[in-house]
C-alpha cells in the first residue's frame, strides 16, 4: 500500500519539478537574452571583417561581450550608452549606421570625463533602446533632439560667449531683450508673476515650449502671459535657451568651465571684480596700481597668467591681493588685457555711467520691457485692462508723475488693475512690487531713465 501511494507522489514530483525547471530556464533565458548583446556581436563581426592582420583578427575575436559603462560620480551619472554605441571614439566608423556611428568632437569633451547623457540626456543606466533613449513611461528626460543639442552647452558654459553655441547665445540675448525677467525669475533674478524658470528645461519638452511661446493659453489654460511674436529662428533660439535651463548644478571641474576664456568675458570680470578701483584704462580709474592701457606691450601672456595667480611671485612688493582666479578666469583676463593694445574698449562701469545709462541697464536687466514694451513703448496686451486692454507705455511718465511718485509706484507696485468690464475676468498682468529686489540707487537710476524717455520736442503743456 505504501509503495503504491509513493508512486502517486513520484508523478506529481516529476510534473511540478519539470514545471519549476522549465520556468527557471525561461526566466534565465529572458534574463540573458538582452538586445545589447546582439549589437555587441554585430560590432565584433564587423571588427573581424575589417581586421587586416592576424593579430587584429585575434583581438577582435577575443573581444568579450560585456557591459561598457562610464562612471561619472561627480555628475551623479552612470552612462552605459557605449554598451551598444561601441565605435563612438573610432573615426574609422564615421558614417556607419547607428548604433555603430562615430561621434566627432570629443577632444575637448572626452567621454571618460563627460559620458553621454550630460549633453544628450536620456537614461544612462538603461541598456535597452527604448529605456536608454528615454522613450518610456516614468522617465522624465527623453533624449534631446539633435537640433537642440546646443542647449546642453549652457549646462556648463555661459551661453553668451560659447562660440560653438551661437543659437543658444541668441536665445539668451532674446530672453534678456524681450524682458522675460519682468515676470519670470531665472537664477533668482526677476519678477514673480510667472513661474520660476530655473528648471524649465527639465520639465518641458521642446514641442511644449514652442507652443507655449506662440500661444501660452493653449497649453496652460488661464495663463497671463501674452502671446509672443517670434520669427522661426528666434523661436528655436529661445526654445533652446529654455531647454538649457535644467536646474542641474554641475560640480567641480564642470562648473569651472562655465567661463570660456574670451576677451569679452575678461572685460566682464574686470568690471565685476572692481579692478578699476586701483588700475586705470584710458585715464579712468584708480592710481594705486599701474595704468593698463599698454600692459599688453609691456608684459607677456605667461607673465600675466602667473601674475593673476600670485601677484607677489612676479612683482615682489606688489600690494595687489590674490583673487583666487580659476585657470580660465585668468586666461580671460589676460585675453582682455592683450586686447587693450589693439582697440579702444568702452567699459560699462557703473561709476563711469550717467544715471540714465545705468537706469537703462536696470530696465533691461529686470525685464521691464516684457510688459511695457521695448524702451517703454508699450503695446503688450493685457485683456480687460481699463488702459485700452494694454499694459501702459512709459514714455510719458515724466508728464504725469513727479520723480518721487514714480519711485513709490515702482517700489509698491499695483496688484489691482482697473478692469474695463467688471463682468469679465480681471486683467492677468499687474505691476509687481520691486521693493527688496531693486535697491534705492537702482530705482533712482530707473526713474531717471524713464524720465529721459519723453520724446524730444514735445511740450509739457496740453
Amino acid at each position, binding site marked *: 500500500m505504501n*509503495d503504491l*501511494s*509513493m508512486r502517486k*507522489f*513520484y508523478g*506529481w*514530483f516529476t510534473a*511540478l*519539478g519539470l*514545471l*519549476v525547471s522549465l*520556468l*527557471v530556464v*525561461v*526566466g*534565465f533565458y*529572458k*534574463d*540573458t537574452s538582452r538586445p545589447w548583446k546582439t549589437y555587441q556581436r554585430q560590432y565584433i563581426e564587423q571588427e573581424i571583417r575589417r581586421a587586416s592582420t592576424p593579430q587584429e583578427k585575434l583581438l577582435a575575436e577575443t573581444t568579450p561581450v560585456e*557591459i561598457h*559603462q562610464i562612471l561619472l560620480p561627480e555628475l*551623479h551619472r*552612470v552612462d*552605459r550608452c557605449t554598451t551598444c554605441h561601441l565605435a563612438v571614439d573610432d573615426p574609422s566608423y564615421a558614417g556607419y549606421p547607428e548604433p555603430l556611428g562615430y561621434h566627432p568632437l570629443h577632444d575637448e569633451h572626452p567621454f571618460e570625463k563627460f559620458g553621454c547623457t550630460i549633453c544628450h540626456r536620456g*537614461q544612462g*543606466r*538603461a*541598456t*535597452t533602446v527604448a*529605456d536608454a533613449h528615454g522613450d518610456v513611461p*516614468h*522617465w*522624465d528626460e527623453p533624449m534631446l533632439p539633435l537640433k537642440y543639442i546646443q542647449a546642453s552647452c549652457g549646462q556648463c558654459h555661459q551661453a553668451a560667449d560659447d562660440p560653438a553655441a551661437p543659437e543658444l547665445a541668441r536665445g539668451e540675448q532674446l530672453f534678456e531683450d524681450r524682458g522675460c525677467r519682468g515676470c519670470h525669475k531665472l537664477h533668482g533674478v526677476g519678477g514673480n508673476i*510667472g*513661474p520660476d524658470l530655473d528648471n524649465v528645461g527639465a520639465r518641458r519638452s521642446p514641442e511644449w515650449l514652442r507652443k507655449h511661446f506662440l500661444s501660452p493659453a493653449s*497649453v*496652460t*489654460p*488661464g*495663463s497671463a502671459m501674452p502671446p509672443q511674436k517670434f520669427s522661426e529662428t528666434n523661436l528655436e533660439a529661445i526654445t533652446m535657451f529654455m531647454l538649457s535651463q535644467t536646474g542641474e548644478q554641475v560640480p567641480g571641474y564642470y562648473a569651472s568651465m562655465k567661463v570660456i576664456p574670451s576677451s569679452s568675458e575678461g572685460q566682464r570680470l574686470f568690471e565685476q571684480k572692481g579692478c578699476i578701483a586701483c588700475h586705470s584704462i584710458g585715464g579712468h580709474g584708480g592710481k594705486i596700481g599701474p595704468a593698463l592701457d599698454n600692459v599688453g606691450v609691456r608684459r607677456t601672456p605667461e607673465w600675466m597668467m602667473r601674475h593673476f595667480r600670485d601677484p607677489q611671485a612676479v612683482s615682489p612688493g606688489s600690494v595687489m591681493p590674490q583673487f583666487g582666479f580659476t585657470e580660465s578666469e585668468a586666461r580671460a583676463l589676460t585675453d582682455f588685457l592683450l586686447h587693450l593694445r589693439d582697440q579702444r574698449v568702452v567699459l560699462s562701469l557703473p561709476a563711469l555711467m550717467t544715471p540714465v545709462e545705468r537706469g537703462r541697464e536696470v530696465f533691461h536687466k529686470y525685464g521691464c520691457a516684457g510688459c511695457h514694451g521695448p524702451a517703454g513703448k508699450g503695446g503688450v496686451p493685457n485683456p480687460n485692462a481699463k488702459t485700452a486692454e494694454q499694459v501702459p507705455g512709459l514714455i510719458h511718465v515724466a508728464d504725469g508723475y513727479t520723480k518721487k511718485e514714480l519711485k513709490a509706484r515702482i517700489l509698491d507696485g499695483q496688484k489691482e488693475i482697473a478692469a474695463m468690464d467688471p463682468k469679465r475676468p480681471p486683467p492677468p498682468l499687474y505691476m509687481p512690487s520691486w521693493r527688496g529686489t531693486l535697491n534705492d540707487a537702482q530705482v533712482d537710476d530707473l526713474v531717471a531713465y524713464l524720465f529721459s524717455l519723453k520724446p524730444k520736442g514735445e511740450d509739457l503743456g496740453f
Partner: protein
Amino acid sequence: MKPPLVKRLWKSFERTRVGRSIFRVGLPESRLERSRAMISSFLLHVQPAKVSRRSLRPGYTLGLGLISLYLFLILIATGVLLMFYYVPSTDQAYNSMKDLQFVVSAGLLIRNMHRWAAHLMVVFVLLHLCRVFYTGAYKRPREFNWVLGVGLFLLTLALSFTGYLLPWDQLAYWAITVGTSIAGYAPLVGQKLRFLLLGGHTVGQEALIRFYALHIIVLPGVAGLMIAVHLWRVRKDGGLSRPDEPGDLVEQVESGQLPANKTYGLMELARGTTPQVGKDPEEEVSAWPHLVFRELLLFLLVVAVVLFLAIFWNAPLEEFANPVHPPNPAKAPWYFLGLQELVSHSAFWGGVVVPGLLVTALLLLPYLDRKRAGIGRWFARERAVANTIFTLCLVAAVVFTVIGTFFRGPNWGWVEPWKQPPAVTEGP
C-alpha cells in the same frame, strides 16, 4: 519491483560515512523508521510522526497557512539577494532599482519575485485568517494561537508597507506619504506616531533608513519568531482543529491539586490531548511521506506560481521620488486603499474608529465567542450568526478596497475604470 534510480543513488550515498554522519535516519522504509525520521530530524520534528487522514484532506485547510509560510521563505531568500545591491539612501536607492533592472544578472527577476510574493503573502495570510474563522478553528484551546495569527497578519501588512518605500520612486514616496498620514489621524498619539515612524514630518532620508531597518531586520525577525511560536502552538494545541469528540479537552491537572506523595510522568502533566490519544490507528497515517511529500509538492507549486508571475509581469517603478510633485490622486498601497476610501469620508471614523474596532474585535474574538458547536467544519450551520457578521465585514472591506483601487481618480473623485479618464490639464 526495483526502486527508481534516484532512490537507489540516494540510498548508496546514505550508506557512506559522510551520509551517515549527516542523516540520523536515512530514507525510511518501515513504519518505525518513518516515525524515527520525523522525530529525529531538526527540520521535521515540529510536525507529528503520525497525522490523521482528516488533517491531510486539502479541502479543509486549502494549505493556506503553509502557502503563507512558503511565501515568507521566498521573500527572505529573494530579499537577502536584493540587499546585496540595495543602498538605503535617497540618492542611490532608485539607482539600485535601475541597476537591478538593467545590469544585474537576474536582478529584475528577483525583484519581481519579491514584489509578487509580497502581494501574494498579504492575500494568503488574509485567506488563511478567513479559513480559520469559517472553520471555527480559533476556539479553545487555540485562542491564543488565533491572537498570534492576527498579530502575524498585521506584521505582514507592516512588512509590505515598509518595503513599499524602498524603491524611492513616485509610487513609493506618495504611497507612504498617504499611508502614514492615515496613521496621523489617530487621536492624541497619531501625529507623534507618524513622527516616530518617519523620523520627521515628511518622508525623507530618515524615513527611508527607518523603513529599511524595520523591513530587513526588525519586522522579519519578529515575524519569524512569531511564526515559530504559531507553528509550535499548532502542535501543542492538538494539531489541526477538528470537531470535538469524547475524550478531547481533558482538563489540565492543576499543580496545586497534585498529591505530593506521588511521582508523575511527563504525560500526566501534559495539557490537553494529542491527536493520537484514544484514536484508532486506522485513522492515522505516517507523516512521512503522506504529510511531508504533500508539503513539498505545495512548495514546488508556490515557487512555480511566483516564478511565473515574476517572469511575465514586472514590478512597477515610476519616476524618481519628487516631494513637490504629487500624483493626482496619491494612493496608498492597495491593501490600505479601503482604509483610504473610508478616510476620504471621515478621517476620524474611517481612519481611527473603524480599523481600531475591527482589530480589537479580531483580537478578542476567541474570548467572546466560546460556543463549542461547529468547530472543524466549514460554514457550520451552528455558526451562522458569526459567519454572517464576518462575511459582511469582509465583503465591506473588499468593496471599499475595490472602490479605492479602481473607482477613484483625480482629487479622489468617482471614476469608472472602463471609461477613458478625462484629460488632465497641466498647471502653469
